[in-house]
């Protein structure tokens, strides 16, 4: 226990350092402007804040819609225990995406302009609307955790009625948003390297986001169980590993079919930076996790699954960075993020982790939460029983987080 405390103190210290450096970078960004504080230029107008914070942030939030679809639409109650953490990750992820955009936009005080000035031919308008609407839906999807904590029964029952609508809206908006981030790059056929440019970018972005959504839920479940000494629900995690495996294999087939169909296979074997990055991306994002999860011994072991999922997450981040930055470097010019760009990104990720930890400690995020004294709801509880007026306090009736 004392060892754990020591570790925590070290990480707290690191957290403070990250926030202080990040705040200095923030002040510099807004006091001096983008030119003085980023590696961006007329040749490379998009950098780390778009490639990492926005592109990767949105993809890593995909667990929110996949898990809610599994639980509510497909009625797979098994995944209920990971639903709230997935929704929370998505909610925090999207908040960070919006905050990241405030850093990146040249005139962030006009971030609301897409509400009134609308160009329907712009993919960026679709992106803007998806961020706004899905962030709202996610807030509503997470609010039951808050109501449950406050014991506000009325709010809970209202949320219960609107849940199916929210879930369907969330799935629709997520599908649109994930794919639209790929559609953004349909307009640069002559700038993006043929290993990445494809008319199927929207589909590839959507499928890869689904795969990494499962991976993120595995990663956060594993880390949460370690950090909060919480029992890991092994059967659920293992099933998530299977789902990730299927999604990754599907992604691999799509990628292969796409590269062959466009006649771009030869680019994979040229001695170029792009080919190297491509193989790193495919190796980390698809080959390694697929091989690992395909081995039953690894799949059945939470730690093995965790490393496989982490690898998939790394591969996805690399994919988004390759599409948004490095895949265009040959045509546009070189770019390296400034320390301000890096430290702001690190700060945003750290703030997200801190907010997640705070929520887990203070809100019923993991259905059974010993540290809040909430009564554990067993998976065997049937919907109508839990819905009974007498039962709701003993078995808190979450729209998200506990059983329907």
């Amino acid at each position, binding site marked *: 226990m004392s060892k754990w405390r020591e570790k925590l103190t070290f990480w707290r210290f690191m957290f403070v350092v990250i926030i202080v450096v990040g705040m200095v970078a923030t002040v510099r960004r807004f006091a001096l402007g983008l030119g003085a504080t980023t590696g961006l230029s007329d040749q490379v107008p998009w950098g780390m804040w778009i490639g990492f914070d926005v592109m990767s942030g949105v993809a890593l939030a995909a667990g929110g819609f996949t898990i809610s679809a599994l639980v509510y639409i497909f009625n797979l109650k098994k995944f209920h225990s990971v639903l709230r953490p997935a929704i929370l990750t998505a909610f925090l992820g999207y908040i960070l995406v919006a905050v990241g955009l405030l850093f990146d936009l040249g*005139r962030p005080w006009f971030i609301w*302009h897409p509400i009134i*000035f609308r160009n329907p031919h712009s993919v960026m308008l679709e992106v803007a609307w998806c961020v706004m609407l899905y962030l709202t839906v996610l807030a509503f999807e997470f609010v039951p955790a808050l109501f449950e904590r406050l014991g506000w029964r009325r709010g809970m029952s209202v949320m219960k009625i609107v849940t199916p609508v929210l879930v369907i809206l969330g799935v629709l908006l997520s599908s649109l948003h994930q794919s639209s981030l790929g559609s953004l790059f349909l307009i640069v056929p002559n700038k993006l390297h043929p290993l990445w440019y494809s008319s199927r970018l929207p589909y590839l972005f959507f499928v890869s986001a689904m795969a990494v959504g499962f991976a993120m839920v595995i990663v956060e479940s594993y880390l949460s169980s370690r950090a909060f000494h919480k029992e890991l629900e092994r059967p659920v995690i293992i099933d998530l590993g299977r789902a990730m495996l299927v999604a990754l294999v599907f992604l691999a087939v799509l990628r292969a079919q796409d590269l062959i169909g466009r006649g771009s296979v030869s680019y994979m074997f040229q001695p170029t930076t792009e080919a190297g990055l491509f193989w790193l991306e495919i190796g980390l994002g698809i080959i390694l996790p697929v091989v690992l999860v395909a081995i039953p011994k690894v799949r059945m072991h939470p730690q093995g699954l965790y490393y496989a999922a982490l690898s998939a997450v790394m591969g996805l981040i690399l994919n988004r960075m390759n599409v948004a930055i490095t895949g265009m470097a040959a045509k546009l010019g070189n770019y390296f993020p400034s320390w301000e760009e890096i430290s702001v990104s690190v700060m945003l990720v750290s703030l997200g982790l801190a907010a997640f930890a705070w929520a887990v400690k203070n809100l019923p995020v993991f259905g059974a939460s010993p540290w809040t004294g909430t009564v554990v709801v067993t998976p065997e509880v049937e919907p109508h029983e839990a819905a009974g007026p007498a039962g709701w306090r003993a078995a808190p009736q979450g729209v998200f987080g506990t059983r329907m």
Partner: protein
Amino acid sequence: MDRQRALLIDITRCIGCGDCAEACKTANSLPPQVETQLSATAYTVVEQKGDYFIRKLCRHCQEPTCVSVCPVGAFVKTAEGPVIYEGEKCIGCRYCMTACPFAVPRYEWTKKAPLVRKCTMCHERVKAGKMTACAEACPEGATVFGYRDELLAEARRRISANPDGYFKHIYGESEVGGTNVLFLAPVQFADLGFRTDLGDIALPNLTWEALEKIPNFVVASGVILGGLWWLINRRATVDQLRHETGQKHPEHPHDNRKLRTPQAGGDRS
């Protein structure tokens, strides 16, 4: 008929004096120092490539990529031909810069409230019936201003009158759907740093193919998801209630499964 205004730039006539760039700076009230590359304070420059001089400027595409990608519609293709930018709408996402096939838009990186900057083809002057400042300033007639169809005819006339002096192509006639800045060159355009891999299809078509699917996608997926939810969850509820109440269905008395009773709760909405 195509009555948009355009510029014809004949590289065989350009002597690289830079008067166009200077006149542009004056017309747009930009700092007067000579610049070698397009910037937020230089909407056109003259670059030397071997023995030739090539003007860099916005091409004022017929179907402009910047107009299509801007989420807030800050870029406008005017009826007169010039593509202009209404900065007060701009949020600074810089998608226009990423998307422009000619890499023209420039950003005021040093400003705290930056705007995108590029050649406006002197839209105000053009509306007032004048020619662009650059065309007016050119001492050699290397840049001429006029109606696009007439300039295309003039370009063809020059090529046929002097087939040895020109590379037989009008750059901008069909590139990315056609542009309102047309180039004639003595050698092939690839040698002068022009991009010859852009194709003739206007780029906005590429994103529109994805965007036009959205309404159908939303309606179809909404119905499918809603239907799936209803089917799967209703079946689960009914099975559950049958199991509980032990009653038979009145319409299917031989069905061995059991029926719910009203007090077991209504159908889930």
